[in-house]
């Protein structure tokens, strides 16, 4: 039930151009506020800085300038390992660690086995998987199952915020709808604040209370998902929604 605030967040990164390194602004002074228990979708073309934004909130990268606040506290003042447990990032391609599903779910936890068993079953149920999955080899799961296990693994840490980086991009339409339902359920049952990156406009409409459009590292528009995606004000948003925006533009 955390509120997330980004204040003029800029992220610069060194990019190779021929033999030289050139500094590039991946995010340019982004302001953003996500309310507790809200599902906020982030849309934008490839290379617009969406994934970087989530990595900055999870502190896998540092902001170059500006600040990120969690319930009013600058995340730099929080212990980074605790922050990552509270603000969990689920990747586009779910990575399973070697071993069984139960070993994946226990990863990074310091709880007794008995308590851990109960927790694991509970988390698997939350992602609509039964406890038989605990003994399955994680490398033999389908991509959809991996994404569910990845979500369950995140839930084992009892996060307050879920950062989801295109978690359905590799899934078929049925699995996509199942994950979307799951996200909504988690939002309602566990009162999680959720940031969800997607390319898919209809997915943003189905999922998000609010959406933000990022283009070339800048926030160009935000507001109620239904309103913004049907009647965007910004010319760049309009082009993006019509599918006319190419990456190099702007």
């Amino acid at each position, binding site marked *: 039930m955390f509120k997330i605030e980004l204040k003029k967040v800029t992220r610069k990164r*060194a990019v190779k151009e021929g033999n030289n390194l050139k500094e590039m602004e991946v995010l340019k002074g982004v302001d953003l506020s996500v309310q507790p228990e809200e599902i906020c979708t982030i849309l934008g073309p490839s290379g617009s800085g969406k994934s970087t934004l989530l990595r900055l909130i*999870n*502190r*896998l*990268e*540092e902001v170059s300038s500006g600040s990120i606040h969690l319930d009013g506290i600058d995340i730099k003042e929080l212990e*980074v*390992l*605790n*922050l*990552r*447990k509270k603000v*969990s*990032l689920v*990747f586009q*391609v779910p*990575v399973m*660690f*070697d071993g069984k599903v139960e070993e994946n779910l226990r*990863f*990074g936890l310091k709880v007794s086995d008995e308590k851990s068993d109960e927790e694991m079953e509970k988390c698997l149920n939350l992602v609509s998987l039964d406890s038989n999955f605990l003994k399955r080899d994680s490398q033999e799961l389908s991509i959809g199952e991996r994404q569910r296990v990845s979500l369950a*693994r*995140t839930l084992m*840490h009892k996060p307050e915020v879920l950062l989801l980086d295109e978690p359905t991009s590799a899934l078929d339409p049925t699995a996509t709808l199942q994950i979307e339902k799951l996200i909504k359920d988690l939002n309602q049952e566990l009162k999680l604040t959720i940031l969800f990156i997607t390319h898919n406009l209809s997915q943003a409409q189905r999922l998000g209370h609010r959406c933000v459009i990022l283009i070339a590292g800048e926030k160009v528009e935000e507001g109620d998902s239904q309103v913004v995606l049907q009647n965007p004000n910004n010319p760049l948003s309009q082009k993006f929604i019509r599918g006319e925006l190419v990456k190099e533009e702007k």
Partner: protein
Amino acid sequence: MIGGIKEVLLALVLVAVSIGISYFRKLDLEKDLLIGTLRSFVQLIAVGYALELVFDLNNLWLILLVILIMVLVGGQTAGSRTKGSLKGFTISTFSIGVGTFFTLGALLLLGVITADPKYVIPLAGMTIGNSTNAAALALERMYSEMKNKKDQIEQALSLGVTSTQAVEHSFKATVRAAMIPTLNLMKIVGLVQLPGAMTGMILAGASPLQAVKLQIIVVYMLICAVSIAAVITSRLSQSTYFTKYHQLVIS
């Protein structure tokens, strides 16, 4: 007797064969072979004189200085194979040094060898040579682990574990890779390969049994030094890829 100047000059016939092969097969290696022959001749003669001097003086500080120079050369060789060569040099020099001094120190303390330069320096040479290989392999493997397993490592980090926990799998793989040549040596020693120390002793007239005893000590010494060098290099090089906030930094 092997070792007179006449025998050395006669052995040059073998280099001539090699140059002949290069010339007739148009390998364009004649110049390299000539320079290599000259260089190895000068280097080895110079080392021979230097060792004669060290053996005659039998001074502990001089022995330590010689070993230190060997460690620095080993560290430079291993470190030069990495991109951040200064860090690579520092890490490998430190790990080779710790492995070498610990192993030789243990042999001296246990009374297996005496502090005689004719024992200490050749054994240090073998230790440093093998530890250099281990350090170079560890530096390279750790880099490729970080590069190829970036997603897996970042997935682990995002779950709130430390960088050391996140790379535990890569760390083990790196140490294993660095130790493989020495482990292989242990398996084939005597059966497939007669190692340098043993061969040298037999050529110098020692009985095969005496040579074998020394070789056994050498193998045990190498496995200890290489383990230490591999573990320290892997752990220290791993730490260079992370910030203090457990963020993976790799280009």
